[in-house]
Each structure stands twice: as structure tokens, then as C-alpha cells.
């Protein structure tokens, strides 16, 4: 949960006062809270922890980091959950 995955912001929206973005992690997309990175716009790269963007990252760095994480067995699934559309995924439980 502390690994932090870099991804690209592809859309930004307001959810009842909360800034939410759709972030693309090398093909896997998730809703991400952008409240802590108000300066971030569509096209920017961010490091995401448990659904929150914590810092901005330069594109080249982000892409190389993503490659390395993709090479770590199970790392993407562990941080982002099973591959499925963003939003209402609750982890396949219940």
C-alpha cells in the first residue's frame, strides 16, 4: 500500500465538491482523488497511493517507473486491485 503507482490524468471532474480524476496506469484506469494536488491538470503524471494522488511526476520518469512496477509480480494488482473498470470496484468480495 506504500508502493505508489505513477499514472496519467486523463479526465478531471467535480464530485460534490471533491476533485476526482481518471488516471491511466499503463492501460488500467481508476478514479483517483486529486484533492491534494490542486495544480494537476489533464495530461499530468501523478504518483497514486490508495486512491489519492500525492505528488506530480515528470512524464519520462513516470513511464520508466511504471515499466519497473509492471515487471514486479503482482505489484499492480496489489496496489490497484483486479483489472476492471474504474469506480465502483470493491475488490470482488462479499
Amino acid at each position, binding site marked *: 500500500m506504500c508502493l505508489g503507482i505513477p499514472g496519467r490524468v486523463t479526465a478531471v471532474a467535480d464530485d460534490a*465538491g471533491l476533485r476526482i480524476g481518471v488516471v491511466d496506469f499503463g492501460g488500467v484506469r481508476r478514479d483517483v482523488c486529486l484533492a*491534494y494536488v490542486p495544480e494537476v491538470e489533464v495530461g499530468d503524471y501523478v*504518483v497514486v497511493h490508495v486512491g489519492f494522488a500525492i*505528488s506530480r*511526476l515528470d512524464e519520462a520518469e513516470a513511464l520508466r517507473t511504471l515499466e519497473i512496477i509492471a515487471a514486479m509480480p503482482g505489484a499492480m494488482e496489489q496496489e490497484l486491485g483486479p483489472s476492471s473498470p474504474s469506480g*465502483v470496484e470493491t475488490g470482488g468480495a462479499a
Partner: protein
Amino acid sequence: MKYVEEYRDPQLAHQLLDQIHAVTTKPWSLMEVCGGQTNTIVRQGIDDVLPVGLRMVHGPGCPVCVTPLEMVDKACAIAVRPEVTFTSYGDMLRVPGSTSDLLSLKARGADVRVVYSPMEAVRIARDEPSRQVVFFAVGFETTAPANAMAVIRAHELGLANFSILVSHVLVPPAMTSILDDEECGIDAFLAAGHVCAVMGWREYEPIAARYRVPIVVTGFEPLDLLEGILMAVRQLESGRAEVENQYIRAVRRNGNEHAQDAIRRVFQVADRTWRGVGRIPDSGLELAPDYLSFDAAKRFAVDDIATLENPACIAGAILRGTKLPTQCAMYGTACTPRTPLGAPMVSSEGTCAAFYNAGRVGEPLTSATA
């Protein structure tokens, strides 16, 4: 190193390693306090290719592992209640409590769900108003802003059916606790990059000065670790004890101040018990008075709970860095990631699981002393 193809630049990795060998003249012990870093070091075999006597000690950097047994037991006591939907990161589900774990309770019918963000738990609370939704808020400073926002959001939405079971810990007090131990042989620290992405590194400056210990803010990729190790050794060899930042691409000195504001709004600093380490003053977070109504421990009255550690598990010594997993009689026999006796074998960020998954066996000290 094993998986050179995972490196961004294998040639640079070898250059960094050559420099580490060139500057190291004395034995040094460096501790990392980040499960992601531990995982990289062990998986890549970085500790095996360092100079003789330069030792990596794996500190209490796995948030799942340091969550005290008492909190796991409280989680179980809450999760079995029929009105409760208990939500947690997947890693926590298999951590053994005194008598059970969350995954076993789920198999027996408890409504336990895996989430990847506390905001998913808030969403469940909003969508299922008849359920009491509890989120297991564990972790270091990296996850605290997310948990703070979940509480702020639940408050804004007026969700009376949402609460969190808080077991938040802070890295700097754990470092000073380790340094205060008379048997501590740690010469320098690698500080966790993403903890510092949130908090910055100002709070590490007095620690470096007071204990004369170099602290290098370091990322979790193989090249980051090699560079962080090199920077720490250079400081040690030249008699410096400063805070340096290796992870410049994601960390600034002041960290993320928006995130820090949210943490300060929702939480306050409190004493915390670390599994395997014990009680450390001011080493964690609890809900601030304004948000106490979101405290699951109070809502479900599980404040007093008796615990029972598995006597065969040496997780405490593992977490303090005084023993390696391969020095445990249970390692790889009675205790595996499928049948964990203790938390460090559960999480991929745990030292025991990292060792097991990397296929480590036998005499571990030979690599450090041979």
C-alpha cells in the same frame, strides 16, 4: 544482481555498485524502514552484492506487520457483528489475530470486503445505508492523507454509518526508538521515499543532528536503492550526518502541505504500540476530538481486549532487525505465505515473505560476513 532486466539501466547499476565498493572502507549497517524497499533489496539480491561488512538491516517498514495484535483482534471482534461491513486492504485479511483472522471470519459468513482505497469504503457506506461500514485504517504517513479525506468526506456527506478503526504509525519516532536502543548498531537510515513525498524531510533533520546519523530519502526502485546506499556510505566515510534526498523526482523538503493539513485536521499524535517493537510515545495518530464520532473502537466498544501472540513466531526480532527470517526455526516449514504464523510472512512488504518469495534459505549471515 538477479533480474538486471528490471533495472532502468543495468550499466548505471553496475557503475553505482562499483562506486559503493570503491568508497566503502569500513563495516557499516544501514537500515531501511520501508517494506517496498525491503522487497526490492531482497528480490534483487542487492544485499548480496554489497561490499563485505556493508549490511542492510530491514527495519519495521511494513505497515501490515507493525499493526499490533490487539488491533487485529479488535478488527475481528467488529467484523463478526451482523450489522457490520468490514473493509480493509487485502494484506490485512490474512494477518493472524489471537484466535482468528479476517479472511477466516469472511469464510464463516462475516461481511468482510477488500478495498483499495478508503474512499471505496465511504462509497459503500453511502450506497448501503443499512450497513455499518468500518474501514481498517492502518499504515504510515503515506496512507494517512487518504484516511483523513475519507473521514472528512463521510462527515460532509453526513454518513452516520461510517467509521474507521485507526492503527496509524509514524516513521520518525520508530527511528529514534531504534536509535535509543543501546544494542542498536545502525549507522545510517534510508528514509522511505513516499512517506517523505507526503511529509517532506524536515522532521528528520533534528534526528540526523542529534544522533549523528546520516538519513537519505530514497525511492524503492533498484537504482534508487543503490544510489541511496552510495549516498549514505559517502556520508559515513566522510564523517557527515545529514539528511539528503536521493528521490528528488517525487519528494520536496516540505512534502505535500495540502495532505499534511488534512492529516492535522482529522488526526492528532498519540502513543502507539508497534507489533514486535512495543509502545513508542507519540508514534502514531488517533482521531482528533472533532472526529471522534468516527472511531470504530469506541462505536463498537472494543477498547479492552486480551491478546495471545503465537510463541513460536519471532516477528518482534525480525521487525527490529535483530534476526533474519532464515534464523527462525518456523521459517519455510510451519510458517509460509500460505500458512503464516506472523504478520511479516503475510504481506509482500514483510521481510519474511520477501525472503520466502525470493527463495532465500540457510545461512544468511555468510553474505554479510564472507
